């Protein structure tokens, strides 16, 4: 667990009437860009707040950069930069004063980096924060986080209000100045296309549960949508077949690995395999959170033999 940038075990966070985080087991390797994806209210921000010590877990435990969450919080905070979802800072202070305020807390703070990013983002450094646009507020937050020299960047919806040019620049900075130096980026977002540009790993959370944690390359190379026609085909889920949907005789399966073998097995069962197609991150996201096609119709139909029996 110490070789992980973030490690959690059975993390649970209950709020009155809400199970915000529900038995979360995260394994974020060091030196990668990890996209933490989920819908609004999925539990992304609650997880980050627990890791930062802003909220206490109801159950479970975690480590950040090898330090215990809750017990060694100052050590975690010394090495971690955080961009919050709210992007709220002191309205009366100018970005220059905010830099002055922040730098004293971090031994690895870089004035050169702060100057570089302020120029790059074209931040008005002498205008009070309260008078800045939403985009410029986000830029100030990013400037402060990037200049800390942190080993881990926890970014909660960091792209709020950024125009496409600045967003592109920011993603480039993350790759060139942070990930390339062996530091870890944990980026929580529902902007899949942004995350897909830089992420090495993907964690997908919904209703506080981790639905998927895998390398993005593995997802792209192995995840397949298998569309078949036939009767009496398997209609329950297994670890390998994450989801299925049926419309009449047509069935769609999201297969994590060995999709060709799975399709061949279905053929032997008498099904006609219409298509085995790769899936993009967006399609997988939608499929897993059961919001849209390709795999969800809400009509699973009659229960038949479990899918796992076809894969074994």
């Amino acid at each position, binding site marked *: 667990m110490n070789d992980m940038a973030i490690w959690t075990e059975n993390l649970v966070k209950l709020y009155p009437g809400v199970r915000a985080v529900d038995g979360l087991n995260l394994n974020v390797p060091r030196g990668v860009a990890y996209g933490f994806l989920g819908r609004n209210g999925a539990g992304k921000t609650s997880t980050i*707040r627990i890791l*930062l*010590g*802003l*909220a*206490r877990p109801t159950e479970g435990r975690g480590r950040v950069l090898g330090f215990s969450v809750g017990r060694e919080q*100052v*050590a975690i*905070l*010394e090495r*971690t930069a*955080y961009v*919050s979802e*709210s992007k*709220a*800072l*002191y*309205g*009366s*202070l100018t970005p220059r004063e905010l830099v*002055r*305020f*922040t*730098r*004293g*807390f*971090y031994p690895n703070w870089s004035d050169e980096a702060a100057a570089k990013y302020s120029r790059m983002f074209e931040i008005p450094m002498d205008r009070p924060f309260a008078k800045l646009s939403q985009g410029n507020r986000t830029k100030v937050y990013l400037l402060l986080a990037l200049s800390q020299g942190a080993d881990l960047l926890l970014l909660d919806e960091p792209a709020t209000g950024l125009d496409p040019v600045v967003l592109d620049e920011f993603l480039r900075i993350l790759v060139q100045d942070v990930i390339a130096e062996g530091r870890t980026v944990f980026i929580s977002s529902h902007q899949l296309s942004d995350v897909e540009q830089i992420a090495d790993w993907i964690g997908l959370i919904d209703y506080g549960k981790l639905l998927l944690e895998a390398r993005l390359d593995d997802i792209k190379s192995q995840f397949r949508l298998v569309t078949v026609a036939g009767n009496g085909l398997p209609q329950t889920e297994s670890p390998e077949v994450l989801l299925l949907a049926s419309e009449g005789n047509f069935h769609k399966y999201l297969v994590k690995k060995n999709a060709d073998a799975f399709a061949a097995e279905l053929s032997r069962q008498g099904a006609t395999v219409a298509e085995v197609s790769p899936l993009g991150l967006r399609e997988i996201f939608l499929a897993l959170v059961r919001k849209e096609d390709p795999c969800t119709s809400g009509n699973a139909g009659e229960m038949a033999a479990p899918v796992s029996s076809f894969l074994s």
Partner: protein
Amino acid sequence: MYVWKCWRDGRTRFIVSVVALLALCVFFSYMQVKFRFGMIGAGPPSSVSQAWSSATCFVLGGVASLFTLLCGLVLGASSLGEEFKERTADFLLVRPRRRSYWVWTGWSVGVLELSAMVFLAAATTFGTLAYLTGHVQTWRPLATAVPLALGGAVAYGLTYFMTVVARNGQQGLTYGFGIFFINLLLPVAAIYHPNLHVPSVLEFMVGACQWVAGRSKAFPTGSLVLWTAIALAFPFAAQLLLERAEV
């Protein structure tokens, strides 16, 4: 850097408070010397001594004490609890410091401001009396800064703590004022119960100033200990609360 931020946040209120308090001290010192004792410049030694003693009690023990308490209550409202209302708490509390650091640093800045304010008030009153009476009767008025600062710290700590409880400066100030006035009124309500003594911070400040002015022989040592403990209890309670708080 947090010290700088605390100072920056409260400096306008602090400067306005200092100017107002110094003006009150000068004004009421003048009124005491001119209208109560009818003298400006040198007078008979007994009158001069009385004027110094009376002005110390009235100006510092009365006017400045009450004003310091009010300033303490108001200054405490711009404390750490206000960060929650402004939604900046999650920015501040992820800086690598223990939460106790934020509480005690913020509280110390406020208490230092109040201490500076009351010392300036005592010095101004002293200077005004020396100017109006033509000579320095005693250095003792300067010592009133100690009980005034302690009383101010109690009032400041009260609002500071209530602001952390309410997570809102305005609400914290309202609660602080409410508790403060109850503390002022309780001794009045208890007047019909001779065996019942409700300690009041204003009573302590006045009593200590009277002792400094030579009008009371007994220094209120018990009250000094009690109010020192209460002044320290507020930030300690705020620390306990904040350490357990979720943001």
